[in-house]
C-alpha cells in the first residue's frame, strides 16, 4: 500500500458521508478526477484502496477495495490524482502477486519508473496483424478441429467439477508453435479461485519449468471480492508489457471469469443501476470486451498476446449472460461437456458447440497440412450425424437405424474414444491427429466424404479402410 500512497498528489479529505456496501459517498470535495484512485485510512490505521465512480457537484462516489467490514465514517481519503497504475520491468517474471499487484512471494515490490494504467488503451484496428500462426497444443480435439492461433482469445466454457484446470495445464505445458523453439511466457490471473486450485497451477508451472517465465496474480476465493475487478486488468497490463515490450509470446490464463462478472453485478446492484439479464449490468458486454480485446498481434511490435479465459457456466447453461456475452466477444470457445466426462472422455470437449474463428488462416498447406480444413469440416458433419443417430437409437433401438445411421453411430462412438480422448500427458503432433481422423473417416464410404476434396481423398483415405467396415 505504501507504493500507492507515495503517489498521492496531496489532496486529502476527512470524513465519509455514507458507507453503502462497497460504495462510499463523500462530500465537500473539489478537484477530484473521474476514475481516480484513492486510499482511505480508517481511525484504526487500516487502509483500503478505492476508485472514483462518479464525481461532481461537490460529491464523489467511491468504490472501495479490500472489504468494507470495519469501515467508519471517520476516515481520511487521499486522492492519488491518477487511475490505477502498476510498475513494470523484466523483474516481474517469475513473481507472484496478489489481486492488486502486491508481491506475496516474499520478494520485494517491483520498482520501476515505467508505470502503466491498468485499463490500457484500445488497440487501433489499423495496427493489428491478423493472427495466423498455428499453436500446436498436442490435444487432438483442439488442434484438429478448434485450432488455436497466436494472438487469439479462446475461452474454455466449463462447469464446476469438470477438468478445465487439468486441460489448461496440459495446454500450457505442451503449447508450441510449429517449427519454432520459442516457449510461451505464461501470465496466470486467478479470480476467486480456491487455494488448492491456485496451488495446482503454481505446482504445475514449477514442475514444467515454466514458473520463471510466468507472472502469477492471485485473487483467491477469500480475498476481497471487489479487487477482482482489477486482477485481470493487472494481468493483462503485465502481459502486454512482456509481449510488446519484452517481445515474448505470452499466453494469458484468466480463471474464473464468472467470479469476475459476479463482482461486477454486485457493484452494479450497490449503485442501484437498471439491470439487464439476470441482474447483470447492461454494460457487462463492454466491460468484458475491455478485457478480452486485449489480445492480438501488433504491427511493428514484437511478441503476441494469446488469451485463454476459463469460465464456469452457471447451471451448465451456455445461454447464461456470462458465457453468452463472452462468446459474442471472444474468437470462439472450447465447450466442456458433463455428459462426455461422465462417460470417461478426457478431455471432455464437445466439438459441436465449440468453435475457433481464427482457425482458417492458421491451418492448411505450409502451416499444418493441406487436408486439415476439409477433414475438420467432414468430422463435424459426420459427428453431428452420428450424435443424431445416437439420439434416435435411444428411442427406436439400434435395429431401427438405417445402414447409414449405423455407420455414423459407430463413427461417433470411435470419434469420442479415439480422437477426442487422449492422455493428460499425451502430446500428439498435428500429423498424428490428422492420421487418426482419417482412420476414423474410413469407417464411412469414400463417397460419403463430400466435404473433402477428391484429391485429398485419393491421397489420404486409408486403403485398408474399406475392409475395416
Amino acid at each position, binding site marked *: 500500500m505504501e507504493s500507492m500512497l507515495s503517489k498521492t498528489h496531496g489532496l486529502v479529505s476527512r470524513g465519509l458521508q455514507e458507507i453503502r456496501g462497497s460504495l462510499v459517498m463523500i462530500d465537500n470535495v473539489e478537484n477530484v478526477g*473521474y476514475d481516480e484512485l484513492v486510499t482511505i485510512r480508517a481511525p484504526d490505521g487500516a487502509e483500503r484502496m478505492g476508485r472514483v465512480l462518479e464525481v461532481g457537484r461537490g460529491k464523489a462516489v467511491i468504490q472501495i477495495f479490500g472489504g468494507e467490514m470495519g469501515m467508519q465514517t471517520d476516515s481520511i481519503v487521499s486522492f492519488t490524482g*491518477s487511475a490505477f497504475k502498476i510498475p513494470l520491468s523484466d523483474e516481474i517474471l517469475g513473481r507472484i502477486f496478489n489481486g492488486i499487484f502486491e508481491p506475496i512471494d516474499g520478494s520485494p515490490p517491483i520498482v520501476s519508473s515505467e508505470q502503466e494504467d491498468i485499463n490500457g*488503451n484500445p488497440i*487501433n484496428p489499423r495496427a*493489428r496483424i491478423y493472427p495466423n500462426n498455428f499453436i500446436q497444443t498436442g490435444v487432438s480435439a483442439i488442434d484438429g478441429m478448434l485450432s488455436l492461433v497466436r494472438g487469439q482469445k479462446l475461452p474454455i466454457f466449463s462447469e464446476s467439477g469438470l477438468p478445465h484446470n487439468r486441460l489448461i495445464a496440459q495446454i500450457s505445458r505442451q503449447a508450441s508453435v510449429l517449427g519454432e523453439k520459442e516457449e510461451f511466457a505464461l501470465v496466470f490471473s486467478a479470480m476467486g479461485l480456491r487455494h488448492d486450485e491456485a496451488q495446482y497451477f503454481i505446482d504445475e508451472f514449477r514442475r514444467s519449468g515454466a514458473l520463471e517465465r510466468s507472472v502469477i496474480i492471485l485473487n483467491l476465493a477469500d480475498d476481497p471480492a471487489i479487487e477482482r475487478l482489477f486482477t485481470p486488468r493487472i494481468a493483462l497490463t503485465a502481459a502486454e508489457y512482456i509481449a510488446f515490450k519484452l517481445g515474448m509470446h505470452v499466453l494469458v490464463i484468466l480463471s474464473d471469469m464468472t467470479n469476475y462478472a459476479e463482482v461486477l453485478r454486485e457493484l452494479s446492484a450497490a449503485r442501484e443501476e437498471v439491470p439487464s439479464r439476470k441482474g447483470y449490468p447492461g454494460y457487462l458486454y463492454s466491460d468484458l*470486451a475491455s478485457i478480452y480485446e486485449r489480445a492480438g498481434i501488433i504491427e511493428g511490435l514484437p511478441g503476441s498476446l494469446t488469451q485463454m479465459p476459463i469460465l464456469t457456466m452457471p447451471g451448465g447453461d451456455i445461454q447464461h449472460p456470462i458465457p453468452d*456475452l463472452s462468446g459474442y466477444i471472444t474468437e470462439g470457445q472450447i465447450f466442456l461437456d458433463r455428459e462426455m466426462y461422465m462417460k470417461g472422455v478426457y478431455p471432455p470437449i464437445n466439438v459441436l458447440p465449440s468453435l475457433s474463428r481464427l482457425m482458417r488462416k492458421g491451418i492448411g498447406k505450409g502451416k499444418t497440412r493441406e487436408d486439415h480444413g476439409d477433414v475438420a469440416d467432414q468430422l463435424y458433419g459426420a459427428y453431428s450425424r452420428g450424435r443424431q443417430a445416437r439420439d434416435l437409437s435411444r428411442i427406436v433401438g439400434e435395429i431401427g*437405424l438405417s445402414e447409414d445411421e449405423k455407420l455414423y453411430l459407430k463413427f461417433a462412438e470411435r470419434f469420442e474414444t479415439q480422437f477426442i480422448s487422449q492422455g493428460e500427458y499425451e502430446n500428439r503432433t498435428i500429423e498424428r491427429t490428422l492420421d487418426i481422423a482419417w482412420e476414423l473417416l474410413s469407417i464411412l464410404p469414400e463417397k460419403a466424404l463430400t466435404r473433402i476434396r477428391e484429391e485429398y481423398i485419393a491421397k489420404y483415405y486409408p486403403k485398408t479402410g474399406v475392409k475395416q467396415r
Partner: protein
Amino acid sequence: MVESRTGEVRWISGSVVVGSGIRDIEMGEIVEVGKDRLVGEVIRVGAEEFTAQLYENTTGVKPGEEIIGVGKRLVAELGVGLLGNILDGVGRALDRIKLQTGPFIARGVRVNTLPREKKWHFKPLMKKGEDAGPGDIVGTVQEMPVLVHKVMVPPNLSGRITQISEGDFTVEEPVATLERDGKKGYVRLMQEWPIRIPRPFAPGGRLPLDEPLVTGQRVIDTFFPIPKGGTASIPGGFGTGKTVMLHQLAKWCAAQVIVYVGCGERGNEMCEVLTDFPELMDPRTKRPLMERTILIANTSNMPVAAREASIYLGVTMGEYYRDQGYDVAMMADSTSRWAEALREISGRLEEMPAEGGYPAYLPDRVAEFYERAGRVRALGSPERQGSVTIIGAVSPPGGDFNEPVTIHTLRFTGVFWALDRDLAYSRHFPAIHWLKSYSLYVDRLLTSWAQSYSQYADRIAEYWKGRLETDFSQLRGKALKILGESAEIESIARIMGERALPDDQRLILLESELIKEAFLRQFAYHEVDAFCEMEKQVAMLQLLLEFYDKASHLVQRGVPIERIKSIPQIPKLERAKEDRSGIQGLQRLSEEIENELAKIRQEYNLV
C-alpha cells in the same frame, strides 16, 4: 450557427458529463471537455445544466474543468478520398491516428476524415455563367480507377457559377464559386452533413424496390432475395455466421460502393477485412474490393458513445454516394451493440427504462435508421438514381429472437435471414434457416429475375434453352415445399426411424438432404463456390428438382428408394457447386443422371 462558448463541468459518470454555463447550448451540439479537449455531443438540455455523451474515455476529467460548445453538430466529412479508408465511429481516420499515437489509441487525438494535403484532379461539367442548384453535378474526380466521384453542389447552396476550372485541388479549395444576390458560396471536393439527419433526395423521389441486389449467395438470391435499396436483418446467436455473411455480402454483392460498419465487434475482424479486401478482386470490375469499400471500425473496447454514432456516420456516407447515382450497400455489425450503447447512455441519464432496460424510444430509433435505406431519384441534375441497401446483424442475448432489438428490427426491415444454432453446430453454413426466414420482396424480385434472365439465354449452351424459361419462382416454390415437408417427415423419423417410413417420404428426405448439401450449403472461403452466379443458381436448382421428379416417378412405380440412393451421381450432385466447369458441368451431370435412371427403368421394365 453560434460562436464557441465556454462553460464548466459539473458532474461525470462514465461517458456522460453534465455541464453548465452555456445558456444557448443546443441539442446535438458538439462540445469539447477539459485540457485534453475530449469530444462529445449534447444529448439533453435543461434550464441550468446540459448533458453530453463523450466519444472518448473520461478518466481523470474533473468537475470545474472547461466545457466548450463549438457551435456545430456532429457532421460527416463527405468527399473525395472516402473510399479505401478506415475510420473510427466519429469519422477519424485510423491510419492517421496510428501515425500520431502509435498502435494504441490515446485520448484527445484530432484527425480529420479526409486528408487535407492530397490533391485531386477536377474536371468541370458545368460552365461559368450557368445556374447551379442543390445536388447539381458541377464536375468529376476520378476517385478510384473504376469510380468517378461526382462533385455535387451541397443541398443548401445555389447560385450562378462565377468561377469554375479544371485543375488539381485539395478537398478544402473551392472548385467552383456560386453567386446569388451578391453572396458567394463555394463548391469543394468535400462537404459536411450532420450524421443524424437524412440527406435529401428529389421531392417524391422514392422509387419502387424491384431491382435485385445480386449477392452470389444461393440461399439469399434464390430463396430470400434483397432488392437494391431494401433492408435486411440477420439475427443469430454467437458464432452462427453473421459476420461471415456480412463479409460475404461486402465482397460479392453487386453494389458499387460498400460501407461496412463494425459497431462494437472484434478488432481482428476489421483487420481481416483490411487484410483480405485489397487482395480480393471484384468479380464485375476486376479491381481490388478495397477500392469500393469504406470501413468504419468502432470495436467493442472503443468508447461506447462513438459506437452509437458509428452507424449514422456510415449511412450518411452511403447516402452521399447514393446521391451521386451509385448503388450502395451498407452492413452494420452489430446493431445490437448500437442499441446497447443507447441503453447504457439512457441508464446514465436515469431515464425510465422499457423492456430489457432499453429506452422507450428504441423502436423509433430503429425505424429512423432503416428508413434511410431506399432507392431514390437524386437531388439536382443530371437526373440519376441511386440506392442505399442496409443490412444489419442482430445479436440477441442467448440467441433468443424474442427480445426487444430483434423484435423491433423485424418490424422495420423487409428481409429476415434467421440464423440457426443447430445448423451452425453441424457446420451447415450459411446457417440461414430456410423455414424461418423470409423476404417481403420476393414476388416482385422473382418476376424481375425471370425477365432479366433471358439476357443470359444466348450466352449459354443450346441445351439449356427452353429449360431456363421455366418459371424460376415455380422452382423456388417447389424446393421450399420439399424442405417444408421433409421437416415434418423428419420429426416422425426421429421417433420411428427412417426405415419405418414409406419410400415416397424417404425420397423427400433424400431430396431435401440434396438441396441442403448441394444448394443451400455454401462455404464462404471456397475458391469456386464463394460466389455463385445467378444463372448457375437457377441451373443447379433445376437439375436438383428434375432429379426429384424423375426419381419420384420411379418410386411411384415401385422402384425401391435404396436403388435410387445407390446411383453414383448423388455424391456428384453434392459436389457440383464446387466444379469449375460451371453450367457445362451441370449439363453433363444432368445427362449422366438421365442415363443412370434410364438403366433403372429398364431394370424394372418401366420403359
